[in-house]
């Protein structure tokens, strides 16, 4: 009896701790950003006021007055969607090989594949920018898609490899004995079973592509300006303009929130959890 009661109490403290942590890292910053995004520039917001004394939508009007922002949003959505699917398509064969073939240099290949994750994006962007320039890919949508894919591939490969490793080899063999060619076994068994991995990796790829600035800026600017690049220009050159920055943050946060809301629905089937667990 006392044991279960103690467990209950411990469970409650654990819950308080976790939710507290969540509030601290997610909601407090959001509240601060929200306050900045809606404060009234005409009145201002100075200490010792903890919250602004007056609110307005002035910062929003300023950012959204730019007609080009809708075009940038559409461009961003197109680029991020393409990057996500391209990443999935490119990552699958590599992940399949890493998961199934016991070749000797596997470790080396793994490190090679994952290397871009530990190199800062700006380094990748600068060096690739040079190559892309020579190939005539700078200031093209294709160039931006390619350079973003460089950044999203490692994570996708990592997640997919772990997902595919979890598929018992005997399932593929069973499919073969039942009359499926290797390709059909792959399409009917491995691909659908890798769905949690595709979902988790796809969400992260989409977000990382949508928010990417340095690689996109290096390759795309000034000709190609998806939302992230355009919004960065609102941050204001030498000094940070807080209210506009807050608005920019909100806009960039929107797809992330929408996507995780969708993900949360799908998580009901534990599909996403299965994929995210492979990180």
């Amino acid at each position, binding site marked *: 009896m006392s044991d279960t009661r103690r467990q209950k109490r411990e469970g409650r403290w654990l819950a308080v701790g976790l939710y507290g942590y969540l509030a601290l890292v997610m909601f407090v910053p959001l509240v601060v950003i929200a306050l900045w995004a809606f404060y009234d520039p005409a009145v201002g917001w100075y200490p010792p006021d903890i919250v602004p004394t007056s609110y307005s939508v002035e910062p929003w009007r300023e950012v959204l007055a730019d007609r080009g922002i809708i075009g940038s949003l559409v461009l961003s959505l197109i680029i991020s969607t393409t990057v996500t699917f391209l990443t999935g398509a490119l990552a699958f064969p590599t992940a399949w090989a890493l998961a199934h073939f016991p070749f000797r240099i596997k470790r080396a290949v793994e490190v090679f594949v994952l290397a871009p994750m530990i190199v800062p994006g700006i380094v990748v962007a600068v060096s690739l920018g040079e190559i892309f320039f020579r190939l005539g890919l700078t200031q093209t949508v294709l160039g931006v898609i390619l350079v973003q894919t460089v950044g999203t591939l490692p994570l996708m490969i990592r997640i997919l490899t772990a997902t595919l490793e979890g598929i018992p080899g*005997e*399932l593929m*063999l*069973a499919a*073969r*004995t*039942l*009359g499926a060619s290797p390709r059909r076994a792959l399409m009917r*068994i491995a691909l659908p*079973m890798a769905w949690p991995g595709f979902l988790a990796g796809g969400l992260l790829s989409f977000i990382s592509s949508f928010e990417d600035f340095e690689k996109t800026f290096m390759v795309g600017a000034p000709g190609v300006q998806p939302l992230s690049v355009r919004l960065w220009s609102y941050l204001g050159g030498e000094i940070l303009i807080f209210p506009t920055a807050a608005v920019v943050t909100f806009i960039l946060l929107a797809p992330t929130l929408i996507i995780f809301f969708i993900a949360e629905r799908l998580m009901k089937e534990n599909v996403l959890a299965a994929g995210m667990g492979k990180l």
Partner: protein
Amino acid sequence: MAGLSIRGLTKAFDQVRALDGVDLEVPDGQLVTLLGPSGCGKTTLLRSVAGITDPTEGGIWLGDRRIDGVPPERRNFGMVFQSYALFPHMSVFKNLAFGLEMRRLPRSEIRKRVAQALHLVDMEAMAGRLPRQLSGGQQQRVALARAIVIEPDVLLFDEPLSNLDAKLRDSLRDQLRALQRRLGVTSIYVTHDQVEAMALADEIVIMFSGEIVERGDPVSLYRRPIFRFTAEFLGRTNVIEARLDGDRCRLPWGDERSVENPGIDDPAGVAIRPEDIAISTANGSDPHGEIAERMFLGAGTNYVVDAGGVRVRVNVAGTQNDLIDIGTPVRLTPPKSLHLLRRGRHGSAEALA
């Protein structure tokens, strides 16, 4: 339908030979079990027949069609795995339909044949379930139905009952045998469980370290094995070093018996099955030995008797006998005529069991 012939099949990995020149005939419609300790090559042999392992040398024929080198999807062999290998993202119905869809059968035909197969294994009610919603026994019945629904030329079983608990294993084993008989499909069944092997097989093939030790129908293989390895692997047996003299032998505790197969090479001893020895308390007459251990099993009682310096296992069946206490002097009555075993290259299987 046709029988299966395997000739000179060898599978070499880097250093090890998992199969070393195996010859095997599986007559049409018969069930052959491959029995042996783990690592003996039985699974490699089965996988070679299925086409999911490529043999290094030798050939496999189905009737007069040579099939080694044919990819598994074109062999039309059904396979049942130890892990069931059901597709977790498909319903029971979809699992069964998979093989038929690969054969591009019309939908109505698929529905009909899936229903028939599910009926055979008594799983009609579960067609809409996902594999994870089924018990182990139900999953294995679905796996069996999935293998037979394609009307295979050969059925291959890779220790299909090993993951199930004892009671379920027995009932499923009987169902499986009845079904195989009814369908008359040529079958190979891999197992390390000798009871399963005897219950199911038309012929048992004993394997060890990539080779066939001995083969035969269950009765003769159990009663008159050639090698010590077989005698010890197929059930338990006392292998007793007896002094040989022509067609007579003298047991360590003094009894003399005739030998039914005198004059064989490298004799390892005579085989006496524990259940073939009668035991009685000495009651004043000359004892052969005394009870060293006793284990009551319900259906019978197992004793170990210290007799003439050897330990002899004796199993007494039935529950109506008085139990004999440890330390009691006893007399042993082995059968009138005893069977000699050859040592062979395989040695004793006791350490493996």
